[in-house]
């Protein structure tokens, strides 16, 4: 399998086929003499901005600390949760529990639900 072509930047869906963003980064563990392993999938603003420029990555981390749903570090999903890789990357997780939807929920709660007719983010 080609890691960059077939995994990086692909859309992820959770157990319920709920969109949970794109694969923003991948963590590879390199040992002294053992074969390198892919251990985690990374999601989140700072990870993607870092790919453009390190300064943008730092700026994004700082801004995220001042505004919005605060969270320490990037969202990390263990590779063992990857179920299948096809059109999307299917993960055996609950999207809401991972933190990948923090911004979605924050914007829904703080902005969209306050506008009449926005509906409720939690309603079925």
């Amino acid at each position, binding site marked *: 399998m080609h890691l960059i072509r077939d995994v990086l930047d692909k859309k992820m869906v959770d157990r319920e086929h*709920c969109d949970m963003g794109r694969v923003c980064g991948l963590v590879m563990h390199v040992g002294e003499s053992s074969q390198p392993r892919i251990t985690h999938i990374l999601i989140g603003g700072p990870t993607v901005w870092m*790919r*453009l420029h390190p300064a943008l990555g730092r700026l994004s981390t700082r801004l995220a600390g001042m505004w919005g749903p605060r969270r320490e570090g990037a969202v990390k999903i263990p590779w063992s949760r990857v179920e299948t890789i096809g*059109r999307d990357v299917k993960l055996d997780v609950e999207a809401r529990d991972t933190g990948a939807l923090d911004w*979605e929920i924050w914007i829904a709660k703080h*902005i969209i639900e306050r506008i009449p007719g*926005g*509906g409720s983010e939690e*309603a079925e």
Partner: protein
Amino acid sequence: MKKILQITLGIVTSIGGFLEIGSVMTAAQAGAEFGYQLLWALLLGTLCLIFLVEMSGRLAAVSRHTVVDAMRERFGFPFFFIVLVGIVLVAFMVLVAELGGIAYGMQILTGIGFPWWAIPISLTVWLLMWKGSFSLIENGASLLGLVTISFMVAAIRLRPEWSSVGSAMLPSMPHGDKARYGFLAVSILGASISPYLMYFYSSGAIEEKWDRTYLPINRFIAGFGMTFGGVLSMAVLIVAALALRPQGIQLDTFPQAALMLTTALPKYGFYFFALSMVFACFGAALEISLAIAYFFAQGFGWNWSQNLKPSKNARFAFVYTLIILLAGIPLVLGIDPIKVTMMSMALTSATLPIAIVPFLFLMNDPIFLGKHRNGWISNSVVAIVIVISFVLALISIPLEIAGA
């Protein structure tokens, strides 16, 4: 049966998508200043658009990816980001121009200045996005846009010399101001080959859950719909050439354009023009706001669908809310929508390469498209569009300064 309905609606949609303030103003200016001579630019733009739209529909139907999905996936975030900045900036300017077109239409109907209309219009567009489903937006706006057919009626009633119309389908050198001629040609191509239409169309195909069985329909809609839209733009040019040019009128402002249909359709021409602009620009404003929101949502992998409640795709709804509100501001300040239109059309040409080059790669991707990838005809067309787009990008900025 459902598919036949979809064909009809698809064609209607493309009329709505094709005719908007940019194509009307550029075509009318061309007709008023150079007669039929720039018809070839409309023909070329329409042909290119037919192919590009067919391809983006095919990509969506076969790979179940929109153009933006596929671009982010193949080219990665850094490249995607460059395209995002370029396309969204230009699309935003086009949105300002469309809102301005609605506002100007209201101004000539009521006599109340266009800046006063900016806020009510932005709110109406936003409210439709907020409340309406995808098909309501797509079909409602386009059905209203059918009033633009009045341009075609007017063109026929003015009895153009069809032989001169035919010979203008081939490019020729102007007698007068060459820079101005070039600028108008670039603007016409920019107004016709608008990338946002590709993004909107492929997103629509995903919203309506197209699969491979829709490929013939896709071809049909792209071919007929875009042709119809192109013919309408040509009608605008012909009307301007026959009604405005003999009076020596050059279109610098919108109220002048409003006189366009008064000779061919003496009784209701003025109102047809005003309503055409209001409805067509309204449809285009909806499509562009959606296209921008789709661009963000698909590029970043957010959940998106115009058929969900806003809170179910909060980030998507947030983007279009913000964009529409921001687009109202320049109009409140009184910036002339016609200037914005002419500038955004030339800038569309300047950003075409970053939209079309990755598209060529995607349409040849064996993983996405398998045996449905581009054949040599389609590839040659894209290659031609790329050459044109690079030429346009290189010359549009100097021409902008020399010709406007």
